[in-house]
């Protein structure tokens, strides 16, 4: 007998499972390995019922159980100092970490991936990615206040890229805009390694008062369990495990996940409705339904609380009445939440639901039995210890080893390579090189994307595209606010996973500090290939080790994140792409520093020193080279630079600041002048003499821990003194020339801002319309 024939009217009860131990179960089709299935049998002391099998299979999937990464992720919790714990109100493990902002305010943020769904159906995949991460934020008790979207696509000129780009961007906009959440930043990278595996990551940030923090646990015997929001349909059944534990392989179309369609209107209503519940203190515990749906919500709520719960599954409101109990448990239908409510609050809870016309159904109650019992019309179909489902999944120590090609890769430096031949040196060549750089797929303006996102809604967006960090005001009275940036460089991480991950953190940290905010917390989305490939597993292990080490040095903790594995086409993985988000704090967002020059005559300073670091750079990428070692990581310098930028912003010593990252000084100079259409005169001879580099290197090297700042005349002495006192290299490289309409760099042919702007803005419209 198979489960198929067992479907509708012949429900596989626990009693039946005990009587029919030899029934064949489709554990392999559901993504479980033989040893995992055997473990389920051992845990239960009998074969699982169909419903139990469904639960274990989704909850023990890579996506939900982190079975390949768990052993490594521990470092984020272990490598923390007291300093790092100081402001952490809720750490890793909950739906999202919570950080103290002071004045009774707290902030929660998290980044997640929705990669494979976005390849299959870009619009809906990306849209539901936003929907899912926003629900994580709501379930902490917070009001979501902004989203961000780090994106990676295949080659810009590949025929399939437009499909994914158009769909993903429209989906992120379509969903986020409808929720009234400003989009305050993100990333956009084109690289053929992402052709069959685009990365669509989504970040959401929310704020709350300390007393409103909610956790996902079900406590209090006799409290009622309620499911509310959208009805349950057949969405993504098997999606969680099939999607995340099998590589996407187009020879097996039957393994394609069912597509989920998002309903942003339903989610917007759900947000308002939840906030009203929080305000009235009407829920004891709350959990969003994402991957693994009801399986996840019931087992996590129960095991984090008093340990028991009883649920009648026929009470679930269905969109598709033909769903089996197992399918109901696995469904990933969007826009649903589960909550625990005391009997006294039932009436008030229902009134809120009715006001917002949100559907709900009472499913059962909290018990102290230590068992999660699910019935179907009274017959027990699940009887498990919820911990075994939610927390005690398999953990693998997957073998890993430094790939045998890594040494050769690192030895293959750009300098002196075939691709390096004819390096630009003459003024006209350098001007052409700058223009080529800033119109290249990765360095061009992202406004084609960001124009499709609402940045104004809420009235609290203090900075967004194209500045280094997105900045949101939290408290209108005091100006208290937060800044956020996300970064990753897959090429750097490919060349050296340990340092590459640190570079991602360093850049996000630097971006936040550049805006003037004090970095406080980290969330990360680790996008990698198959953990069953020892090369990839090594990349993952190294990246986590690097990131956790660097967090210690910078003194900011990881408060949450997400791991996305099996991002590969056939046996070719993507570049290891640890996307790192850093959150910072402003006492008053009015002090924020924008990235563009403004006032005529202000001095332009370069902070930091420049080495010849072109390996993995955008310039080498444009020449088709990838090899050597990424730029050196100097976390002490990053910290010092950060402090200078933060102090200078707080004390009003600078009017603009822009960090140097991909594309080096050339990119930063162009971006700072295009920001408000303000020109400048730049001379780099002193820099070249001091650091021993040529003009090309000064412009295109990607040495870290650098930034350019605009200093008002009246502040120059004070600014210089501060940098000197801190022993940080700083050099006056030019002056703002507001009305010239020209970026004039000594030794480079004059760059007219109009032409630069056209080159910078033209690229995405040229490919995507």
């Amino acid at each position, binding site marked *: 007998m198979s489960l198929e024939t067992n479907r509708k009217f012949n429900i596989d009860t626990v009693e039946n499972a005990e009587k029919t131990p030899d029934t064949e179960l489709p554990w392999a089709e559901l993504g479980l390995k033989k040893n995992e299935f055997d473990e389920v049998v051992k845990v239960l002391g009998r074969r699982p019922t169909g419903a139990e099998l469904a639960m274990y299979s989704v909850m023990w999937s890579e996506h939900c159980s982190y079975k390949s990464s768990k052993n490594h992720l521990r470092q984020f919790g272990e490598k923390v100092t007291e300093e790092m714990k100081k402001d952490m109100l809720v750490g890793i493990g909950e739906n999202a970490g919570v950080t103290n902002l002071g004045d009774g305010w707290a902030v929660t943020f998290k980044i997640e991936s929705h990669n494979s769904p976005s390849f299959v159906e870009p619009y809906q995949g990306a849209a539901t990615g936003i929907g899912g991460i926003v629900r994580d934020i709501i379930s902490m008790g917070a009001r979501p206040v902004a989203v961000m979207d780090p994106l990676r696509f295949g080659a810009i000129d590949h025929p399939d890229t437009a499909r994914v780009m158009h769909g993903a961007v*429209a989906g992120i906009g379509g969903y986020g805009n409808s929720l*009234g959440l400003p989009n305050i930043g993100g990333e956009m990278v084109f690289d053929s390694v992402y052709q069959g595996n685009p990365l669509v990551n989504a970040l959401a940030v929310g704020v709350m008062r300390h007393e409103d923090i909610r956790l996902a646990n079900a406590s209090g015997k006799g409290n009622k369990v309620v499911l509310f929001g959208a009805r349950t349909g057949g969405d993504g059944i098997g999606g969680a495990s099939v999607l995340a534990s099998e590589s996407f392989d187009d020879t097996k179309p039957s393994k394609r996940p069912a597509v989920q369609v998002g309903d*942003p209107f339903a989610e917007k209503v759900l947000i308002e409705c939840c906030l009203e519940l929080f305000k009235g203190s009407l829920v004891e515990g709350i959990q969003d339904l994402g991957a693994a749906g009801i399986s996840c919500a019931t087992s996590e709520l129960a095991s984090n609380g008093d340990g028991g719960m009883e649920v009648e599954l026929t009470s679930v409101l269905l969109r598709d009445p033909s769903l089996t109990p197992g399918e109901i448990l696995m469904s990933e239908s969007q826009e649903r939440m589960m909550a625990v409510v005391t009997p006294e609050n039932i009436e008030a809870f229902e009134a809120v639901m009715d006001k917002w016309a949100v559907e709900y159904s009472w499913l059962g109650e909290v018990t102290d039995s230590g068992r999660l019992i699910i019935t179907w019309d009274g017959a027990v179909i699940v009887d498990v210890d919820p911990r075994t489902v939610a927390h005690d999944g398999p953990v693998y120590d997957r073998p890993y080893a430094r790939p045998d090609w890594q040494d050769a890769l690192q030895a293959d430096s750009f300098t002196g390579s075939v691709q390096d031949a004819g390096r630009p040196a003459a003024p006209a060549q350098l001007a052409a090189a700058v223009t080529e750089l800033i119109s290249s797929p990765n360095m061009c303006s992202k406004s084609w994307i960001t124009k*499709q*996102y609402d*940045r*104004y*809604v809420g009235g609290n*967006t*203090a900075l967004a595209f194209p500045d280094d960090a997105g900045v949101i005001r939290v408290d209108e009275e005091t100006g208290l606010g937060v800044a956020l940036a996300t970064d990753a460089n897959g090429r750097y991480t490919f060349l050296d996973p340990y340092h590459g991950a640190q570079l991602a953190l360093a850049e996000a940290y630097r971006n936040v500090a550049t805006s003037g905010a004090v970095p406080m917390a980290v969330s990360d989305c680790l996008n990698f290939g198959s953990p069953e490939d020892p090369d990839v597993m090594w990349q993952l292990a190294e990246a986590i080790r690097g990131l956790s080490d660097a967090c210690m040095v910078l003194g900011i903790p990881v408060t949450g994140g997400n791991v996305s594995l099996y991002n590969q086409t056939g046996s070719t993985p993507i570049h290891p792409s640890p996307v790192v988000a850093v959150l910072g704090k402003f006492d008053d967002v009015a002090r924020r520093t924008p990235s563009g020059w403004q006032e005529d005559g202000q001095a332009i300073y370069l902070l930091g020193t420049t080495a010849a670091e072109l390996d993995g750079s955008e310039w080498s990428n444009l020449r088709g080279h990838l090899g050597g070692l990424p730029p050196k990581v100097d976390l002490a310098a990053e910290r010092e630079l950060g402090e200078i930028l933060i102090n200078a912003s707080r004390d009003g010593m600078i009017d603009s600041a822009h960090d140097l990252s991909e594309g080096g000084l050339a990119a930063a100079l162009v971006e700072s002048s295009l920001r408000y259409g303000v020109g400048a005169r730049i001379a780099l001879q002193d820099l070249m003499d001091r650091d021993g580099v040529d003009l090309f290197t000064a412009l295109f090297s990607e040495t870290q821990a650098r930034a350019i700042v605009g200093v008002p005349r009246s502040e120059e002495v004070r600014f210089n003194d501060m940098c000197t006192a801190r022993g940080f290299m700083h050099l006056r490289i030019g002056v703002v020339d507001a009305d010239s309409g020209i970026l004039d760099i000594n030794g480079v042919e004059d760059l007219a801002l109009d032409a630069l702007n056209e080159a910078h803005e033209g690229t995405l419209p040229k490919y995507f319309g």
Partner: protein
Amino acid sequence: MSELPLIGEAVAIAAEPRLAGARIGVVTFPGTLDDRDAARAIRLAGASAISLWHADTELGEVDAVVIPGGFSYGDYLRAGAIARFAPLMTRIIDAANSEAKLPVLGICNGFQILTESHLLPGSMIKNDHLKFNCSNQILRVENNTTAWTSDYALDQEIAIPLKNQDGQYIADEKTLDALEAENRVVFRYVGANPNGSRRSIAGISNAAGNVVGLMPHPEHAVEAGYGPETPGGAGGIDGLGFFTSILTKIVGGAK
């Protein structure tokens, strides 16, 4: 009635008591997004913002009403199509057409709701480029005699955010001719037409001038540093005039 807490508390403004007595309603439908912003704009201008809930059957004591932007009911059918049938809309339509001529401002989705309600002629369809467009738009004020535009100079150019997917204003030629002849084109887009709107129309009024609708968002341009970009971050408050205009009218009328 729903309460609309801002993220933090309202910006502290000591409104002149005479002004704070002016009550301007802000309607919230399921899916409304910019209600908080509209309320903030009203408070920044000095009046009291009164939250109105779509399902309410009475309008209560308000001197004017703002129907803010967003995606009522997801705008899945047509923008504003379902919201138009809300109980409160019936009250608003009656009050706008009554002798008292209740001033009503529809912003973006609010404008779409007003056209679906036939308080204003024409309709909005998808932008000609089919994409959502969020940008900083320059408008020209072509009629400064309406309840909502009296604080602007005629032909003044103002910078106001525009953000929508269904922002292309259309009406038949006869209607367009009549709108122009009756001086009911209140705002026009300056520069390149951002969405294909007929005759670059950004906003219109009814014949009496008490009902005004426009696609761009004045409530997002009322506080320096949080609206349209200006170097130095000091500007960007060109939208405030909508809210001071209505206040002038209300208070002036009460004198």
